[in-house]
């Protein structure tokens, strides 16, 4: 990919995150006010000190007015954006670029979603006028993601019953973690038996294989890296931001086998290159990944390079990704237990990185990898489904690298060999 990255050029210096859940008593406005003021307070600034805003929401409002009106912002640029379930991360990515460009000193990325006002289970699609001839509106998200499970089992020779155990363990782990999180939608542990016996929704996925449908909001304050210590003693430096919108050909290309998200693998490789990461399993302290459905998390472990191809299921069963494992994944409970208010989820993931890397996570869910000296966290946010998706990967860290702070003079990290930034091999289409 032809990205230069903005490694160590910007930093997150404040964050806020509401509890996620069924907020019958809170409006979209309430949630925005709550996370925006919390983030500002966290950075020690007032809303008026923030120069520009990027609001991510999939369907809880249109235009910048969705944010500027409830916050009564005066004379501020506010952009509303959407990139399916990666919307929250997309708002962060744009805010970071705006600060890195020098256009603004201080920007806010904020995401919100109010799903529980629709009265329906699951997501409600947007009604673009269409010809009804592409199968898109027919099936639900759990059905689309359920395709991963039998394909994975068949390709790697995993018995379907054993795979069901793997998926159950993913849900069980995330509920274990969510039980320790006061902001999570589901705050109690769930037995493996309850999970595996839950009513089927699609394919081999039961209700407990699906993430929570919830309301919530999260926000981050972004400033130039060299200014970060004016706001906090422990900023999170942005090491990598990568986004890939796929060609959506998986559902029309017989070569696609439903055991991987090529978009995720590509965005991960790009992010690792930007961040200078060579061994993510050993270098990352934790990862927050898009566990919208249990087989998604399994496949992500391989696409993100946390497990060898075809081996991820064994690593799940061995507890490698548990809270006390070698590489804790979704220590906050993930989409599964924390809930999934679309536009907020990417920033919620970042909020957990913020807490964990800064040593602010409650003791009962603090990952030991940080204490052991690792300082990097990864967030992964995905929209769409197998065969056609957008994928976002970020890497953040508490240490500012030696090459950082040069104000964009180093578009590529050292390992890229000093070749021309444009010399990257393939351009794609």
């Amino acid at each position, binding site marked *: 990919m032809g990205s230069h990255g903005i490694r160590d050029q910007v930093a997150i210096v404040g964050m806020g995150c509401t509890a996620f859940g069924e907020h019958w008593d809170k409006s979209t406005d309430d949630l925005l006010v709550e996370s925006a003021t919390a983030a500002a307070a966290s950075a020690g600034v007032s809303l008026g000190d923030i120069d520009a805003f990027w609001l991510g929401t999939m369907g809880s409002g249109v235009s910048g007015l969705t944010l500027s009106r409830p916050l009564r912002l005066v004379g501020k640029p506010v952009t509303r954006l959407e990139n399916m379930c990666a919307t929250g991360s997309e708002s962060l990515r744009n805010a970071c670029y705006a600060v890195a460009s020098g256009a603004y000193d201080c920007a806010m990325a904020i995401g919100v979603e109010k799903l529980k006002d*629709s009265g*329906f*289970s*699951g997501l*409600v*699609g947007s*009604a673009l*006028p*269409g*010809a*009804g*001839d*592409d*199968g898109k*509106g*027919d*099936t*639900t998200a*759990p*059905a*689309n993601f*359920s*395709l991963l499970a*039998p*394909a994975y089992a*068949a390709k790697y020779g995993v018995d379907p019953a054993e795979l069901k155990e793997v998926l159950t363990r993913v849900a069980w782990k995330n509920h274990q973690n969510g039980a320790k999180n006061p902001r999570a939608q589901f705050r109690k542990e769930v037995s493996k038996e309850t999970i595996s016996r839950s009513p*089927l*929704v*699609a*394919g081999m996925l039961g209700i407990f294989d699906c993430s929570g449908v919830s309301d919530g909001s999260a926000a981050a304050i972004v400033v130039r890296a060299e200014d970060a210590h004016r706001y906090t003693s422990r900023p999170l430096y942005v090491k990598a931001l990568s986004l890939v919108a796929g*060609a959506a*050909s998986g*559902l*029309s*290309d*017989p070569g*696609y086998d*439903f055991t991987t998200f090529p978009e995720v693998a590509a965005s991960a490789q790009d992010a690792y290159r930007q961040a200078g990461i060579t061994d993510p399993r050993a270098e990352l302290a934790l990862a927050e990944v898009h566990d919208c459905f249990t087989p998604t998390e399994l496949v992500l472990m391989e696409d993100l390079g946390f497990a060898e191809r075809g081996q991820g299921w064994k690593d799940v069963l061995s507890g490698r990704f548990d809270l006390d494992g070698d590489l804790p994944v979704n220590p906050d409970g993930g989409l599964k237990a924390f809930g999934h208010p679309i536009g907020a989820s990417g920033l919620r993931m970042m909020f957990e990185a913020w807490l964990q890397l800064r040593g602010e996570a409650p003791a009962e869910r603090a990952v030991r990898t940080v204490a052991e000296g690792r300082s990097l966290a990864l967030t992964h946010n995905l929209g769409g489904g197998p065969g056609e998706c957008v994928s976002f990967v970020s890497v953040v860290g508490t240490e500012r690298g030696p090459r950082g702070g040069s104000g964009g003079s180093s578009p590529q990290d050292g390992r890229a060999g000093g070749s021309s930034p444009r010399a990257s091999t393939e351009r794609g*289409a």
Partner: protein
Amino acid sequence: MGGLVGYGAYIPYYQLERTRIAGVLGSGGGSGTRSVAAFDEDTTSMAVAAGRVALAPMTGLTGPGGQPGRACVRQLFFATTVPAYADKTNATAVHAALRLPADALAVDMAGAVRSGVGALVTAAQSAVPAMAVLADIRTGLPGSADERDGGDGAAAFVFSGADGGAGLRGGVWGGRPPGPALPVLAEVIGQGCATAEFLDRWRTPGAAASRVWEERFGEQVYGPLAEAAMADALKQAGLTPGQVDHLIVAGLPARAVSRTVRAAGVPAEAVAGTYAPPLSDRIGNAGTAQPGIVLADVLDRAGPGETILLVVLADGAFALALRTTEALARHRQAQPVTAQIAAGSTALDYATFLSWRGFLDREPPRRPDPDPVAAPPSLRRTGWKFGLVAAKCTRCGTRSLPPDRVCQQCHAVDEMTPEPLADVPATVTTYTVDRLAYTPSPPMLMVVLDFDGGGRMRCQLTDASEDEVRAGLRVEMTFRRLVTAAGVHNYFWKARPVRSGPGKDE
């Protein structure tokens, strides 16, 4: 007169065992089964299914200007008592799905059972190549005789055109020697007609069921009308009743049909072959489509040079005499009517049947109502949506489903050529069962399929149960009504298991 060059019948997959009616209602029903259009079928979709079979002989042939053989069809007449739309023509959807030429006429003959034979005769008499498509869904109130005795299905017939034009001339389709030969399968050799206004069977538009006068009244009125029509047809054909090899008497008034069979005076074996099971016991009477389905069944097995007398009783009588040719044996429809019946499923329960026909409202999934399709996008994608015409990259040969402008393989822009896929078999590569999705008959079976020769598509699987769907399943494409939202029917294609030959009922 011209000749028949193609025919096809369509019998829906589902059959309702009549004993299930009494099992629920406590009385009524009877023995045997009736055919049932699935929740995603209507008369338009079944007409497409039959029409595709009837046009099969034209596949691979070339008409004037190098067009596909089916482009020679100049007229399409669609008859049904249950049109999917009023005001709007339904034959246009059939026309689009069959990929007939834009300058061909396509019209409905909707409303009455008699329209079926009307369409048949109009197409047979046409000066240009023409096809008649007959489809019906027979309903009656729960427990009624109409519910028990009715059937659903469709039939289609393609005629060469009487003379000249772009039609058949000297055995050459398209009148363009040296074009490919398209032989006549049966010649129309005589006809007779009787029309009468009397109150036999009627239904006000929108009513759930028909009403009928006392049957003995109809029997008396139909008798002489049928006899007159038969006599005229036989006279024109130069036949005596004893020379009729196959007698077909179709019509909803059962007593009048029986009387006409007795009065025809044809040899006993001419009757026995036509009314033997499984037709009567398994699919019931498909009203408008009934004469077509029984005619197709006779054509499935008739020998060369045999005579067929088709009599239809509906608001009068119509008789049509045909003589088969030697070519028939080589060009029968691929799946005989009896094989289609044998491949059906009797697993349908009565409650599901009632809900499909709108007599039982069941709780829908807790999902938003589906969005209606919009007119302009549907128009822009008529070829794909109705005809399942994908695109193929002329540079690298990759198929693009749906037809896109940029090749997903080699990224060439605007180098696509149309690629019809409706008749290309496919294999299920993966699938899921969606219990949350909105469908009139949950759960939704969703498959990802790969076409023989390339191309992938995600769509619904129909005419199949949850236990049947598996990776590796061989499927064929079928034109269906996906859903109706805001009064708009969304027609598109689904896959269904290939069920060749008898004995496939699981």
